[in-house]
């Protein structure tokens, strides 16, 4: 029986009148009693006052007056907000529009929900997916493993899903690679990475959550190395190979990386953890992947960043336009340390120098150290992992894209999460501080009909429709030129701008916002702007911001309405350049060749199927812009089970 009373402070029994007229006859006794009671009550009252803290007065009032919808109660029914400081993104992705208190959760129908499924992004046929695991290229196939819940569209019961592809785009589902069948991974077959040995064999290190809920590292390898599909996996009989070392808590030890060779010929890996609120990366050396030696020092640490999940460590060339094997080192090489921060659900990277002898790494710019500087992606993007693709000599990045709609909708549609299109990673020679991400070239094989628009003039305060036919599966490459006069004449100001705290595209500046409206309907009642906003400082210097505005992307109230984005370095002589992949409910946008990237999930109710359109827009007050674009219709990647009855899921 539900009795909520124990949780409610007992209402005052004001109104009970214990005394009666008979008391009047015993005056002296009563006086003494009164004094005694007064002293007692003063004492109690004093105790109450001094130790009372943060009590829910509003709650008590509601109970007394029985009001159902007093303003204070509505305020208390807001979703819990978190984030230690201003500017830290909401970890929970449920930010409802402020004026939607009167709206119900949106009545999603099957037509709207089934439209949301992507055509060319990797996702399993149903249920929940999260981190990418152990990506590699082996015997002619790209392999992709992933955290998967075989039972529901929410996180839980995690095992390893598996798929293969010849080109990182057309994926074929295979049976689950590993399930929770040992005591050391009974409570979770979690994230791990693959290492390819010099003889071509593969080893996999992954985190298991044991029957006692301790996080340990386990070794697994293919049952049959001659099987190009790597269908069956064997777990090493002596697992776990690593348990939390002294000083590290049982639940702060996960996500081992791909190994790289040291100058002594040993293999080295790093595993993220934390000590109090300092995020760290532990380093282990091994000769056989079975016995490990924990290095005295750590790879790196940054105070205040919290737990480092899915740490990644890899070299990039300062000079060449190709990727490097994880073991490569040398004078023309920089090393990247990346961590997924548990605290704010974002992926951060930093470029620096690796000191091989003692297994440490120092950032080039401590101000943009791991966790406090640059992000791979300013939208919804987490648990990313790279691998060296020896097939095409490039480093490829995978990233998990969660949902930003309501969990109820996820359950209704029966699935949650997609992966980003794999991206190549290169050191940005021009800035020296950024990495460049770009969709793998194989995605171009999906391009169908193309449309070209040259020097389309978009005056300040106008919208130009782009007739490209259906607009839910597109690859867009655009360049924008802002008229110089406006750039020079505009007066600068001290006002600071940030995408997330701005008013989105309705907030007009002299030199922005301007860009594209994707997944927009004819009346623009739903629209997702992907745009630039140029701010001029009082010193005359221009700063360009790249943003993605979800505030009007859907009339539904139960989807994320934030504005994502960040500064994007635009160098002398560069035009504003943009690439956007639109694939139903996911939009991936790349500014300045991939210097700043934003991925967002979009859930329109009207701008779907044939009603979705594409527009150019310029909501600046002073600048006009000239846009040149090439736009392709994109084919589906037809991701499906591997065509073999015995082996398909």
């Amino acid at each position, binding site marked *: 029986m*539900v009795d*909520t009373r*124990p*949780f409610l*402070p*007992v209402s*005052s*029994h*004001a109104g*009970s009148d*214990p*005394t009666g007229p008979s008391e009047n006859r015993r005056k002296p006794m009563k*006086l003494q*009693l*009164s004094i005694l*009671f*007064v002293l*007692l*009550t003063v004492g*109690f*009252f004093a*105790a*109450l006052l001094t*130790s*009372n*803290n*943060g*009590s*829910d007065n509003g*709650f008590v009032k509601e109970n007394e007056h029985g009001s*159902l919808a007093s303003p204070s*109660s509505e305020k*208390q*029914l*807001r*979703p*819990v907000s*978190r984030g230690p400081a201003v500017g830290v993104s909401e*970890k*929970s992705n*449920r930010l409802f529009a402020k004026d939607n*208190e*009167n*709206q*119900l*959760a949106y009545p999603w129908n099957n037509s709207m929900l089934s439209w949301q499924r992507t055509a060319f992004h990797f996702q399993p046929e149903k249920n929940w997916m999260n981190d990418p695991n152990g990506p590699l290229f082996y015997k002619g196939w790209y392999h992709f493993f992933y955290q998967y819940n075989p039972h529901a569209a*929410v*996180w*839980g019961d995690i095992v390893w899903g598996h798929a293969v592809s010849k080109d990182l785009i057309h994926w074929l589902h295979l049976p689950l690679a590993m399930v929770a069948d040992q005591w050391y991974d009974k409570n*979770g077959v*979690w994230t791990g990475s693959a290492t390819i040995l010099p003889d071509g064999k593969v080893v996999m290190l992954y985190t298991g*959550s044991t029957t006692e*809920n301790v996080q340990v590292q386990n070794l697994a390898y293919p049952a049959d190395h001659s099987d190009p599909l790597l269908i069956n996996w064997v777990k090493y009989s002596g697992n776990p190979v690593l348990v939390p070392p002294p000083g590290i808590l*049982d*639940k702060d030890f996960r996500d081992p990386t791909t190994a790289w060779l040291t100058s002594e010929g040993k293999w080295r890996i790093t595993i993220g953890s934390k000590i109090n609120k300092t995020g760290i990366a532990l380093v282990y050396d091994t000769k056989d992947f079975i016995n490990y030696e924990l290095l005295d020092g750590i790879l790196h640490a940054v105070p205040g960043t919290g*737990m480092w999940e899915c740490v990644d460590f890899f070299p990039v060339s300062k000079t060449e336009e190709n990727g490097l094997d994880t073991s490569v080192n040398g004078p023309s090489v920089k090393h990247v340390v990346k961590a997924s921060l*548990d605290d704010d659900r974002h992926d951060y990277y930093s470029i620096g120098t690796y000191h091989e002898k003692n297994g440490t790494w120092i950032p080039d710019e401590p101000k943009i150290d791991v966790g406090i500087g640059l992000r791979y992606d300013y939208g919804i993007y987490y648990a990313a992992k790279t691998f060296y693709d020896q097939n095409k000599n490039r480093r490829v990045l995978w990233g998990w894209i969660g949902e930003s709609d*309501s*969990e*109820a909708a996820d359950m209704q549609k029966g699935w949650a999460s997609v992966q980003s299109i794999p991206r190549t990673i290169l050191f940005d020679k021009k800035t020296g501080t950024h990495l460049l991400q770009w969709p793998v070239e194989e995605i171009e094989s999906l391009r169908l009909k193309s449309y070209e628009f040259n020097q389309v003039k978009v005056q300040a305060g106008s919208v130009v429709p782009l007739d490209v036919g259906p607009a839910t599966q597109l690859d867009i490459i655009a360049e924008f030129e802002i008229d110089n006069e406006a750039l020079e004449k505009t007066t600068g100001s001290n006002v600071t701008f940030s995408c997330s705290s701005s008013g989105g595209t309705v907030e007009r500046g002299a030199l922005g916002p301007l860009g594209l409206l994707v997944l927009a309907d004819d009346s623009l009642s739903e629209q997702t702007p992907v745009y630039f906003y140029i701010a001029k400082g009082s010193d005359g210097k221009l700063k360009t911001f790249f943003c993605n505005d979800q505030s009007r992307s859907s009339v539904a109230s139960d989807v994320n309405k934030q504005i994502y984005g960040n500064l994007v370095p635009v160098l002398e002589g560069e035009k504003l350049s943009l690439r956007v992949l639109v694939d139903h409910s996911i939009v991936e946008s790349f500014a300045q060749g991939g210097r700043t990237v934003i991925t967002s999930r979009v859930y329109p109710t009207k701008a779907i199927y044939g009603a979705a359109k594409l527009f150019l827009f310029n909501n600046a007050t002073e600048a006009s812009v000239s846009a040149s674009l090439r736009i392709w219709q994109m084919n589906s990647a037809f991701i499906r089970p591997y065509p073999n009855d015995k082996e398909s899921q």
Partner: protein
Amino acid sequence: MNNTISLTLLHLAFCFTLVSFTPISALELHGTGANMVETTCQKTPFYNLCVSALKSDPRSSGADVAGLAQIGTDKLKAKATATLRQITALLKVAKDPELKMALRDCADYYNAIVKYDIPVAVEAVTKGDPKFGVEGATDAANEADACGRGFKNQPKFPIYASNKVVHDLSAVVASIVQLLL
């Protein structure tokens, strides 16, 4: 005059004595030592609810934050399950079509809470991937919120109190799990 004053004083004394023995102040009477429950609950948006929920479970004395998070999710599960039963019972006797519709929506929301949100939170806390626990608990709060909004234009909200407890307790659990990050 004397009698009136004495009567008033006695009356006030009686009231304060009673108020003093409510759960809140009873706790404060035990002293202001660094009690894990109190310090943890101070970091949640509903202190009193948090304290009374946790303390009602004997496991709370000597529990660490992870233990308190588990107790919190257990309590939440009990409250949500009971509220779902309440909704189901009300649906059987409800005649008004709008009331039925609102109750049916709430049944859906509570099914989600009991079947998905809370198990996710429990699993995340026990196995040590707390971010999913924060998400699960926050989802539960949002489902309860959605249920409540369905009654905004209704004259009566029969499950107001239990729904509010589920919402607030979810928010409390989310805050506690956050401390594990």
